[in-house]
């Protein structure tokens, strides 16, 4: 009995915390809302700069790692080959890391920045449009991937190359030694589960709302809690089926199908929409992004526009960091057999390029309608963020078909994210077993969906999102130590196992 408790400590504790918080969110959403708003506000207000510095550091660290002699290290045994094809790997990367958010924010984010830029810019001006595209690129560019890369690189190195269980706590062996099996290690793993559950619950809830909005705009029905609940139920059944089929089949097939669908949608919009303008936006925003990457990376705008930075950039950075345990573990599990250089450059550049194209095409389409055809996309987004993309479709041929394809894309991205999250949660709560039991996957699947449904009903979803983001602060520190630990690990390998005698004391 004692052994069973020890083996399932992370599972029991994290499940109890999740259920307790969900119960508070259902019973007293106002109190949870007030408390989490205070916590989230205090963290962003006082530690927001840490997120900026840390994200920039992760970017520099991962790039220097890739181009250093450590870049040749394989995430697996020396002669191991990658388990997934390049397209399969890239599709899963994209689906787990960005997919659903990109559909949600592809139109909404540029339009929001255009309408409400920081106070030093005039809203709805040419400068605001330029700013909007540049910051959309920035928020979805290389930094989020650098955050994910640090987490997944560490997990992949310590599990596949060093033979440790794929857990976040395993990454700290060079620093903590056997203490990774004690209270410190359990705390890190529990925090990771906690952030992942709340992140996926929030995502499931918000995604269901957007699917509902999309279906409502096609079939002209009034969207309400009943339909949202039905969507959550359908998605849950789908991702549970996918989850039971395993990583090799379910997630990979769904991810590949989804990326193909997304590229088709992108190509259609590019062909039918203002193609030249879209390419112009892509080219000039890319130049803007690259030339101002350094200043954007470290600018908190303390004199004017600090609130804007807090509500956008700092929020995003905290969100990416809170997502990193889930994405990190998942990305690590699909990256076995790749070299560090291949992994860092592939994970950083390929999804970023697709993301930039996506923003240029959908943001460009929205700007074209807003600036040259007098449509009021920005205002529509200000009223309801989830409808932005569908408002753009309304001005295009085959709008109903486009909406349905997007809803399908949302559902599949959703299923993929939830499927991989369930897999990761079950793995994290089974001491890193690579094929966790179906019962654990089922438990987490049902817990995530039920919590999302309950909080959608009570209105406590945003509070839960803030809880997930609050976990980003300890995770920032954890990830900085993770960089130190990874460096120690690979240095040891080079000095003692590869006969490198360049050590100087």
């Amino acid at each position: 009995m004692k052994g069973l408790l020890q083996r399932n400590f992370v599972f029991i504790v994290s499940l109890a915390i999740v259920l307790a918080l969900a119960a508070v969110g259902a019973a007293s959403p106002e109190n949870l809302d007030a408390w989490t708003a205070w916590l989230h506000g205090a963290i962003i207000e006082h530690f927001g700069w840490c997120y900026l510095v840390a994200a920039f550091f992760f970017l520099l660290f991962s790039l220097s790692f890739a181009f250093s002699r450590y870049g040749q290290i394989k995430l697996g045994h020396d002669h191991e080959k990658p388990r997934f094809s390049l397209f399969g790997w890239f599709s899963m990367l994209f689906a787990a890391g960005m997919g659903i958010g990109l559909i949600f924010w592809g139109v909404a984010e540029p339009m929001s920045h255009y309408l409400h830029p920081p106070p030093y810019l005039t809203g709805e001006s040419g400068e605001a449009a330029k700013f909007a595209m540049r910051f959309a690129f920035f928020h979805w560019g290389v930094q989020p991937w650098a955050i994910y890369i640090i987490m997944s690189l560490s997990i992949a190195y310590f599990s596949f190359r060093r033979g440790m269980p794929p857990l976040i706590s395993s990454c700290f062996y060079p620093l903590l030694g056997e203490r990774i099996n004690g209270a410190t290690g359990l705390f890190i793993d529990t925090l990771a589960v906690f952030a992942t559950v709340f992140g996926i619950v929030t995502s499931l809830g918000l995604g269901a709302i957007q699917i509902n909005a999309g279906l409502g705009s096609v079939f002209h029905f009034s969207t309400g809690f009943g339909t949202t609940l039905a969507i959550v139920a359908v998605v849950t059944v789908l991702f549970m089926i996918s989850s039971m089929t395993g990583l090799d089949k379910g997630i990979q097939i769904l991810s590949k199908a989804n990326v193909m669908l997304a590229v088709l949608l992108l190509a259609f919009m590019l062909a039918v929409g203002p193609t030249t303008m879209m390419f112009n936006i892509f080219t000039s925003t890319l130049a803007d992004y690259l030339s101002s990457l350094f200043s954007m990376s470290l600018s908190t705008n303390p004199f004017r526009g600090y609130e804007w930075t807090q509500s956008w950039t700092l929020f995003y950075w905290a969100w990416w960091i809170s997502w990193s345990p889930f994405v990190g573990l998942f990305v690590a599990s699909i990256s076995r057999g790749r070299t560090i250089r291949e992994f860092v450059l592939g994970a950083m550049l390929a999804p970023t390029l697709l993301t930039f194209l996506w923003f240029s095409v959908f943001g460009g389409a929205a700007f074209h309608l807003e600036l040259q055809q007098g449509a009021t996309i920005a205002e529509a987004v200000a009223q309801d963020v989830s409808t932005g993309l569908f408002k753009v479709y309304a001005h295009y041929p085959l709008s109903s078909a486009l909406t349905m394809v997007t809803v399908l894309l949302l559902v599949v991205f959703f299923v993929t994210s939830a499927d991989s999250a369930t897999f990761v949660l079950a793995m994290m709560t089974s001491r890193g077993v690579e094929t966790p039991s179906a019962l654990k996957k089922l438990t987490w699947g049902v817990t995530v969906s039920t919590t999302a449904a309950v909080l959608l009903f009570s209105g406590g979803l945003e509070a839960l999102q803030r809880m997930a983001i609050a976990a980003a602060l300890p995770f920032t520190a954890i990830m900085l130590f993770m960089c130190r630990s990874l460096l120690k690990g690979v240095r040891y390998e080079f000095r003692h196992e590869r006969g490198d005698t360049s050590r100087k004391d």
Partner: protein
Amino acid sequence: MLKAALVKVSLKEPAGRVAEMLAALRSFGTQEVYLVHVRTSASRAFPKKKRVLLERLREKAEALGLIAEVHILHGHVPTRILQAAWQLDADYIAIAWVHKAVLRQALLGSIDVDIVRMSDSPVFIFKRRFLGRTENLDSVLYATDFQATDRKVMPYLKNKGFQARMLYMLHVGDRAPDPATDKARRKEVLANLDRLANDCAHAYESVKALEVMGSVGRTIVRTAKSTGVELIIVGKVDHPDLFKKLTGSVADQLPHRAPCSVFIIPGFRPDSDAGKERA
């Protein structure tokens, strides 16, 4: 092996510190000392008072049974000390350590640290009297990294001059990235320590191997404190990486932090050693 010592005398050392050090030098089997004072002032005249102090030191050395010579030089202190060590064919350089406040050290630097950094000869940093003993040391700590410095340091450890009752053989290492490799690493480290301990077992009553993980400098100091050794012996690598160049190597930092005296033996120098082998 350690018969002739160049003793740096700044004449700013606390009263009796150099004399204490001279007594301690006999523990290494030293028979001859060169008391070297380097003047930095532009004035040609050398104060009589200083000359008298140097003479008194020479007399004290001779009273201890050492052959002593006084040399007064002029110029950049570390450079002149190192040149003198080479010209006089001294086996090592001895410095009576004078503690400097952090701010003073940061602003003005330290001549003694510069000597340690620049020297190709062994440097003995005297920090504390050997608990009133005039013969052998009681306990000595040698921090080894099992690298080229062992080749240079082991002959000193086996040398009768270094005889002490007890020798602690310490290895400070990094933890391996995973438990299985770490277990193998520890096994290998202990085997290496045992090999070194066996090599010099004849010269000591007891040799104890210690395997510790952590920051090298801090761990050496901590172990020296916990074992209460009178002398730390470390090797020094002459080509530090950029980080060590900025922060100072372990050998550069030890004189500041060690609770006892330190003997720093320069390690393997690829160019010079290759040259010697060819010659």
